[in-house]
Every structure is written in structure tokens, then in C-alpha cells.
């Protein structure tokens, strides 16, 4: 409450700040006048600015008043109200409170009247400035304070230093010299100002900075402060730290650090012999601010750009990344060495120029061919080329030639491997590359021999894997699949390689579908990207379908149901929830719906897919479910929303054709007919001819089943039949001929079922009639109440009438004379029954 700005409503509204609540609330109004108010009035005032969390009472005045003169005069008014001159304030704390408030209000002159010393006013001004983030004033006041007093100025200076861009002059730094070294800020200031740090005081420095002597940061600061004179640079720790900083990382191996190392730190670390990784803008900064130093680093090969940057000056690029410079820029800069080097690397034949670079590379080109006659033209800064020449002369690698990674392969080509040290690390790759060359020259046998030599001469896993791959291909080409697979499986031990896995799948395809599926399943699970995984699944499935017939024969023998290999299923499951294209998602779900129904039917398994709301998911999850009707409904729903989905139309056609085939293959099996009926009943969009045929087939199958059980088909069956029959006329001539035949059969089947059902109903009607009339036996005719009897027989009468009507309609479905006659016979029976039910007396007479 105290310090908050209030709006007081009376006849007019006024804004004031509550500066005190006890013993009576005191408010300083915008006019500058301070007045006490009642608690009840304060309670009704509206808070317009809540400053109650801000410490110091009068200090809040400044916050609200923004140092306005009127508020300062308000302060004076309040003092007057208190009946006290500022200099007569009772306690030191009251004087400080007054001075702080005056300073906060921008009235240093009033603060000076408080009776505080000049240093104390400076001290208050320093803190006040720091509170407002005015580092310039804070530093100014801090440095104006006596050096041996007010220790918290150091904290203010340190803070200002850390947030501002300060560097102290020697005189200013001297002010701090008398301070004990156990002040973090002082030490920091000294270091920041590049003052010499006493070597013996590093423990204190580290302690005050919160660093242990073993910290990497400590080492790095020490190394920087010590300059050239100094720390142990050859240790493992030094190497790690210098390398880390040169590449732009913090010295500390761990910890949460937000600030990156600076360009200057990178440069200093690089000078210790490590590669500086510079962003293009950093290289440009160094180029502009310390070009000599940058040139030193470049000359020592200690600068690399993290990325190419086309906007850098050509001169800079030619220094730090000449590889990326276009040829015309090289020519413009007359950079003859790089021009000559590029020509040498391209192997361009012909005359060389007359520069030193041309002489050198012409000689090197000759040397590469074994010609040492121009060795005198070589620029040999480190003695390696001299050793190479000596090696040619001695026909074996000698001296520094052994250390250079490029000499072995050149000399072995010229001298021959038998005269080259057998254990050279270069031998394995050399044999390998020659082996591959032989393979590309269609010489499987020689390639195989060289692959074996490579294996004998190398311990490097990548080289050995490739040699095994080469060996396997040579065997594979000659039809020796088993040894080829053994070699590939050896290569696959250790680090995973997608290419080797794919090769294993190819070889296995020639051996055993299970083995091929295993390897492709591995590839589908472990390949580095989804595209390759999908390709592996498709390939595996292709292999599987290609061999399906053979596998099905095995299946019959051992009686086990066919399944995709588990690894492949796992891969497909994994892909089904990855961020893959919708088309790929569809393919994966289609496979799962066919081969992993139980898993797919559980919707939670695919809920993580990005395609969770797709038609594809709904359709294939429904397909995997236990009820085919769900699948049919999902297709119908999808096609009704979007009839252009070709894949869904294909699913629909597959369902329709499958049902039709099953129905006509075995009409006695009513199951497919029920689903066909479901498809027609829910309005599955389909071709009109398909609709007629499927309806007809369903009616045939259902009718036959009902006829055998003497049950009458439901009205809906009849309705759909009639709809199908009425659609026939809309079909093309060819379709109509075929459809009419099916509809005829369906009509006869339906009529037969209706007749059979009604025949049974007639029997039951007659039995009911007889039971009723038997009760009349022995009763004199004249004593029988025929009106009541007729009434009792009314249901039988109505049933007969309805049956006669239905049988009459059934006759219209029949195209067979015998069937029509049979229907007539049943109808005649109902006619008789209805007559007796209408006039029971006639039955007895």
C-alpha cells in the first residue's frame, strides 16, 4: 500500500502517493502538497499504480513523479509538515532516507542539506544510478569515492563492468590497488584492464571468481593473463583447452554456459598451434582489425572457415580458403601457385609456364611418373620430396617418404608392392582400390585375389568391410552365393552399413526368401532414412510375393499358416507411425491389414501417425477388424466423401469382386451374400452393373438359404431385388444381357423362397384353423355362435389375404412355369383357408 499511487475521489479527483500509513496515512499529492488523510478515505481511493513491493518509502516518490520539481517540492512540504528542517533530522537513518529520496527526486541540492558527508552523498548517488541502470553515472561516482572506503563500490564497478563496455585507465585502476585482493570485482577489473596479475596470486583470483585451480576456465584465464611467459602448454589438458577454444567452444568441458568464446580468444588459442574455425564474418573482422595476426595464422595453416561466403573480398578468400576461389579470381590475383596446383590435380597434359609454381608442378608431375630428372625444380620445404626422390633411386621407401600419406600409393604403382614395406597402413586401401578396378574390368577372379590381399594388409574396419563386399560380389557373380553371403555377414558385424545390408538382401534373394526377407527387414528397420526403409519393405514384399507359390506349397505340407517374417513386420509397424508420405503410409497399412491384422486393429498402435485422421487409416484399421461390415462401411464413407480416391475405388472393386466371386462360387454359403447385402444396403458407391450383379447374387444366395429353412425373405431383400431389377434397363446392351440372366435366377430364387416360406405358413394356418374348429365338433350347428367363430378366425383370414398378395407378387418374379404353378397351388391353399375363415359354416356343411 505504501508508495502506491492512488486516485482520490471527492468533488474533484486528485492523484497522490501514500508515503506513510502510520500513525496516520500521509499522501503526497500531485500538487506537491503532503497531507494526512483518514484511513476511511484512503480505503475508498483507487489504486492507479501499485509500488508496494518497492523498498524505501520516499524513494517511491521518484518512481511515480519521474523526478518532477513538483514532487520534490512535495517532499519539502512534507518536511515542513513534520516541523523539521532537513539538517535537524533526528537520526542518521532519517537523514539518509531524506537524502536518498531527494536524490531519487533529482534534487541533489536538497540531499546536500541533509547533513550527510559529501562522500556519503556520492555513495548514495552511485547506488541510485545503479538502480536506474545508469552505469556511466554509477562508475563515475564509484571512482570518485575514496579508494579505501565504501567497499560495496567494487560490486557496483564489477557489475557495471560486466554489463557495459568499460576499460579502466591506469589511474582509475590504481584507485583499486589499495584494495585487498579478496574482492572479486577488483581482481576482475584488473584482469579486464589487462593489468599484470601477480603469478603468486592466482589461487586468490580463482577463489574469488568461484573457480577451482583445476578448472579449465582457470587454466585458460591464466594462459591469457600470462601471455607468452607462462603456463605449461604441452600437457594434454592444455591441448584440449586450446583446441576447444580455437574451434569456438568454451574451455570447460561441461557446465551451463551461455556466452560463446570471443574471436580474440579463438585467435590466441589458434596461435598455440590449433586450427581456428572462423565464421566468415569473424574472418572478415580479423582481416580488418588484425590482418598481420591473421596472416600469421594462415601461414601456419591454422585457419579454416566454417562455411563458404561469397561476399568476402577475394584477397581474404585467397588467404583463408583458396580452394573456393573461382579460376578467374585466381587469375585476377595472379595466384600462380594455386592455378598450377589445380592444373596438376586435374592431370592436364602439355607445356607448363615459367613461374616457380609451374616448374614445381611440372617436376612433381614427372616425379609421379617416376621421372626424377627435374627434381631440382621441386620446392621442398620439409624434405619429403627429397626422400621421395631417394626412394625412387633406392627402389624402396626411405626416410620422410614413409611418413607422407600420399607417397605410398604413387611409389607402389611404380616400384611394385613386393618392394614396399608390407605392413604399411596404405597397403590395404591400395589393394582394395585395385581390386575394385579389376571388378570394374569384369575380372572377378583377380578382384577376389586383390580383396584377399587387402584383408591381409588392413586392420581398418571400413577397408576390411569393403574388401569383404568386393569378395562377396566376385563370388556372387560366379553364382557362389553361400561364400558370398558368408563374406557379407562378416562385413555386417561391427558398425552397421545400410549398403552392405542391401547387398546381403540381393544375394540372399538367390538363396532363400526367408534369408532375403531377414536382411531386408534389417535394412527396413535400421536404414538411416525412411525412404530407404520403405524401399526395403517393398523389395522384401516383392520377393515374398514372387516366392509365394512355393511357400504356400510348403505351408500345405507342414500345415502352418503363412506369415511375413517378424523382422519385416516390425519394420512395417515402425514405418506406419513415422512421418512418411500418405501414399507410403497407405502401402504400409495395406500390408499390415493383410498380415498383421490383430496389431493394426488396435487403433492405439497407429494413433501416433501424422496420418491419424486419414481415410487410409480408417479403412485399413476397419479392414483389420473382425467384422468385414466395418471395412465395407469405411470404404462407403470414404467414397461418399471423395469419389476420386483411386486407391479406395480399387479397394471397393476388390471387395465387390471378391464377394461376387464367393457368392457365385458357392451360393449355399450365405456369409458373403450377407456382406454383399450390407454393401448394397448401406449404399456403397459402385458401378451400376456391379450393383445389379451383386444384389442379384446376394438375393440368390439368401433366398436359397431361406427356402431351405422355409422362411420368408425380409421385405428389404425384396425391395433391393426390385431396385436391381428396375436398374437393368439402364445398363448397356451387353451388361443388360448378363444382368438379366442373373436377375431372372435371383427372381426365381426369391419367388421360390417366398413360396416355400408361405407354404409353411399355410400349413401352420391350416393347423390353427383345425385346432379352432375341432373345438366345435359335437356342438349342434344351430347352437354355434358363428359371429364369434368368424371373429376368432379373423387373424387367419388376414394372414391368408397377405400371403395371397405376396404370392401374387412372387409370381411376377418367377420365369419358370413349374415355379409359377407351385406358387399358384400355395395361393389356392390360402384362398381356401381364407374362404373357410370368412365363412366357417361352409367348412362344416
Amino acid at each position, binding site marked *: 500500500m505504501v508508495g502506491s499511487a492512488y486516485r482520490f475521489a471527492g468533488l474533484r479527483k486528485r492523484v497522490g502517493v501514500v508515503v506513510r500509513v502510520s500513525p496516520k496515512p500521509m499522501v503526497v499529492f500531485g500538487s506537491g502538497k503532503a497531507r494526512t488523510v483518514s484511513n476511511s478515505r484512503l480505503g475508498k481511493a483507487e489504486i492507479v499504480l501499485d509500488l508496494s513491493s518497492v*523498498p524505501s518509502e520516499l524513494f517511491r516518490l521518484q518512481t511515480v513523479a519521474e523526478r518532477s520539481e513538483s514532487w520534490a517540492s512535495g517532499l519539502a512540504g512534507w518536511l515542513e509538515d513534520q516541523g523539521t528542517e532537513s539538517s535537524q533530522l533526528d537520526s542518521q537513518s532519517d537523514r539518509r532516507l531524506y537524502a536518498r529520496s531527494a536524490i531519487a527526486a533529482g534534487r541533489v541540492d536538497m540531499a546536500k542539506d541533509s547533513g550527510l558527508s559529501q562522500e556519503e552523498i556520492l555513495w548514495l548517488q552511485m547506488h541510485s544510478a545503479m*538502480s536506474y541502470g545508469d552505469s556511466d553515472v554509477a562508475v563515475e561516482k564509484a571512482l570518485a569515492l575514496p579508494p579505501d572506503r565504501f567497499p560495496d563500490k567494487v560490486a557496483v564497478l*564489477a557489475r557495471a*563492468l*560486466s*554489463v557495459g563496455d568499460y*576499460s579502466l585507465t591506469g589511474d582509475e585502476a590504481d584507485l583499486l590497488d589499495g584494495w585487498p585482493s579478496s574482492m*572479486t570485482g577488483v581482481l*576482475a577489473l584488473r584482469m*579486464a584492464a589487462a593489468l599484470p596479475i601477480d603469478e603468486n596470486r592466482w589461487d586468490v583470483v580463482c577463489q574469488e*571468481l568461484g*573457480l577451482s585451480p583445476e578448472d579449465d576456465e582457470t587454466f585458460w*584465464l591464466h594462459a*591469457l593473463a600470462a*601471455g607468452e611467459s607462462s603456463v605449461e602448454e604441452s600437457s594434454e589438458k592444455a591441448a584440449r583447452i586450446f583446441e576447444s577454444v580455437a574451434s569456438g567452444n568454451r574451455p570447460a568441458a561441461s557446465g551451463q554456459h*551461455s*556466452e560463446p*568464446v*570471443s574471436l*580474440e*580468444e579463438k*585467435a590466441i588459442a589458434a596461435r598455440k598451434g590449433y586450427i581456428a574455425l572462423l565464421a566468415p564474418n569473424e574472418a572478415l573482422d580479423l582481416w580488418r582489425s588484425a590482418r*598481420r595476426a591473421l*596472416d600469421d595464422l594462415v*601461414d601456419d595453416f591454422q585457419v579454416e572457415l566454417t562455411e563458404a561466403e561469397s561476399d568476402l573480398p577475394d*584477397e581474404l578468400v*585467397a588467404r*583463408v580458403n*583458396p580452394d573456393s576461389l573461382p579460376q578467374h579470381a585466381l587469375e585476377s590475383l595472379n595466384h600462380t*601457385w*594455386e592455378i598450377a596446383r589445380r592444373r596438376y590435380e586435374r592431370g592436364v597434359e602439355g607445356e607448363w609456364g615459367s613461374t616457380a609454381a609451374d616448374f614445381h608442378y611440372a617436376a*612433381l608431375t614427372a616425379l*609421379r611418373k617416376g621421372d626424377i630428372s627435374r627434381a631440382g625444380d621441386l620446392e621442398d620445404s620439409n624434405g619429403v*620430396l627429397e626422400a621421395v626422390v631417394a626412394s625412387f633411386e633406392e627402389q624402396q621407401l626411405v626416410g620422410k617418404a614413409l611418413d*607422407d*600419406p*600420399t*607417397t605410398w*600409393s*604413387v611409389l607402389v604403382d611404380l616400384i611394385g608392392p613386393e618392394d614396399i614395406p608390407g605392413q604399411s597402413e596404405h597397403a590395404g*586401401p591400395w589393394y*582394395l582400390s585395385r581390386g*575394385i578396378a579389376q*571388378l*570394374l*574390368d*569384369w575380372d572377378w577372379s583377380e578382384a577376389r585375389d586383390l580383396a584377399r590381399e587387402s584383408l591381409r594388409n588392413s586392420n581398418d574396419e*571400413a577397408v576390411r*568391410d*569393403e574388401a569383404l*563386399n*568386393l569378395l562377396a*560380389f566376385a563370388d556372387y557373380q560366379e553364382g557362389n552365393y553361400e561364400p558370398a553371403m558368408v563374406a557379407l555377414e562378416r562385413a555386417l558385424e561391427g558398425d552397421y*552399413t545400410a549398403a552392405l545390408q542391401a*547387398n546381403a538382401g*540381393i544375394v540372399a534373394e538367390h538363396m532363400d526368401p526367408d534369408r532375403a526377407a531377414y536382411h531386408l527387414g534389417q*535394412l527396413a528397420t535400421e536404414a538411416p532414412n525412411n*525412404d530407404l526403409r520403405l*524401399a526395403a519393405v517393398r*523389395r522384401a514384399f516383392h520377393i515374398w510375393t514372387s516366392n509365394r507359390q512355393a511357400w504356400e506349397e510348403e505351408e500345405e505340407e507342414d500345415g502352418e499358416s503363412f506369415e511375413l517374417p517378424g523382422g519385416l513386420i516390425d519394420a512395417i509397424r515402425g514405418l506406419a507411425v513415422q512421418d512418411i508420405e500418405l501414399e507410403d503410409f497407405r502401402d504400409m497399412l495395406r500390408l499390415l491389414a493383410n498380415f498383421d491384422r490383430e496389431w493394426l486393429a488396435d487403433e492405439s498402435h497407429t494413433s501416433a501417425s501424422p496420418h491419424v485422421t486419414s481415410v487410409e487409416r480408417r479403412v485399413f484399421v476397419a479392414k483389420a477388424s473382425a467384422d468385414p461390415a466395418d471395412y465395407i462401411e469405411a470404404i462407403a464413407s470414404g467414397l461418399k466423401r471423395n469419389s476420386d480416391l483411386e486407391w479406395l475405388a480399387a479397394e471397393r472393386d476388390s471387395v465387390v469382386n471378391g464377394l461376387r466371386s464367393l457368392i457365385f462360387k458357392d451360393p449355399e454359403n450365405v456369409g458373403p451374400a450377407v456382406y454383399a447385402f450390407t454393401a448394397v444396403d448401406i449404399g456403397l458407391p459402385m458401378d451400376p452393373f456391379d450393383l445389379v450383379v451383386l444384389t442379384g447374387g446376394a438375393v440368390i444366395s439368401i433366398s436359397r438359404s431361406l427356402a431351405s429353412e422355409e422362411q420368408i425373405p425380409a421385405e428389404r431383400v425384396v425391395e433391393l431385388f426390385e431396385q436391381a431389377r428396375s436398374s437393368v434397363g439402364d445398363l448397356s446392351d451387353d451388361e443388360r444381357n448378363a444382368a438379366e440372366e442373373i436377375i431372372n435366377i435371383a427372381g426365381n430364387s426369391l419367388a421360390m423362397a417366398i413360396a416355400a416360406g408361405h407354404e409353411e405358413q399355410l400349413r401352420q394356418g391350416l393347423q390353427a384353423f383345425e385346432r379352432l374348429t375341432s373345438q366345435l365338433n359335437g356342438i349342434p350347428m344351430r347352437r354355434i355362435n358363428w359371429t364369434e367363430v368368424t371373429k376368432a378366425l379373423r387373424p387367419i383370414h388376414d394372414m391368408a389375404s397377405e400371403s395371397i398378395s405376396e404370392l401374387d407378387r412372387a409370381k411376377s418374379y418367377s420365369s419358370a412355369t413349374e415355379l409359377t404353378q407351385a406358387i399358384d397351388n400355395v395361393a389356392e391353399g390360402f384362398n381356401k383357408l381364407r374362404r373357410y375363415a370368412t365363412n366357417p359354416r361352409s367348412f362344416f356343411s
Partner: protein
Amino acid sequence: MTDIDRRNPYIILGLPFGSNEEEARAGFAKARRRLRRDPDAQYTTEDLTWALHQIEQLITHPELAIDVYRVPADPGAIESDARGVFHPASHPVARTTDTESAEEWEQLRAAALSNAVRRVLTERLEASAQYIPYQ
């Protein structure tokens, strides 16, 4: 499986796996010349045509082709990027500045020290309590 099933378009054209169409055409021309010289070679012109067609038309994304045996499977195993006298690194152009750089290095060191201290100090201050004005 027959020999035809094992045909590899890259090997037939004498190319490492993944070579592009241009390289395939060059490989085709070279292999044809070889067939003219060596009519008994194990491949025929028909094979070469098939291989070229495969690479030009069918293997649009070699990295996804898993029905073609890969040789090499790992090109990095045989490609050495090691630099040395016979495979020299690029040459930086000669410097245009003199080598009297001690003063610049001293300035860099001072700036580096200042930056490092400021960084450490800032982190310490951020980690500790924020600046609290006098009470």
C-alpha cells in the same frame, strides 16, 4: 536365378555404384570399344544397352536402389583425402602484410583476456543474486 538376374548395370559399364548418366554414357562408349577389341568378352552390346537404359531411365535415385549390388558399398573406404606431396593442399596467396605482428598479438591477447574475464564474471553474477540496491 540366371546370369541375367545378376547383371549389374554399373559393373557392366565399368563404373562405381551411383555414377550419373553422363558417366554412364562415357562408360558405355568405353565398354563398346572394348567389345570391339574383344568379341569374347563376357558381356554383349545388348548388355551394355540394357545397363545404360537402367542408369538413364530406371535408377533415378541410386541411394534408394536396393536391387542393385553396390560396389563400392562405402566409397570412403578407398577415397583418401589425406594431403601430402602428391596431393597437395590448396595454396594461400602470399601475404601482403609484414611479419611484425607482435603488437597486434598483444592487443588480441589483452582483448581476449578482457573478454574471458567479462564472460566468467557475467556468468557468476547471473548465477548469483541480482543487484540489490542499498537498504
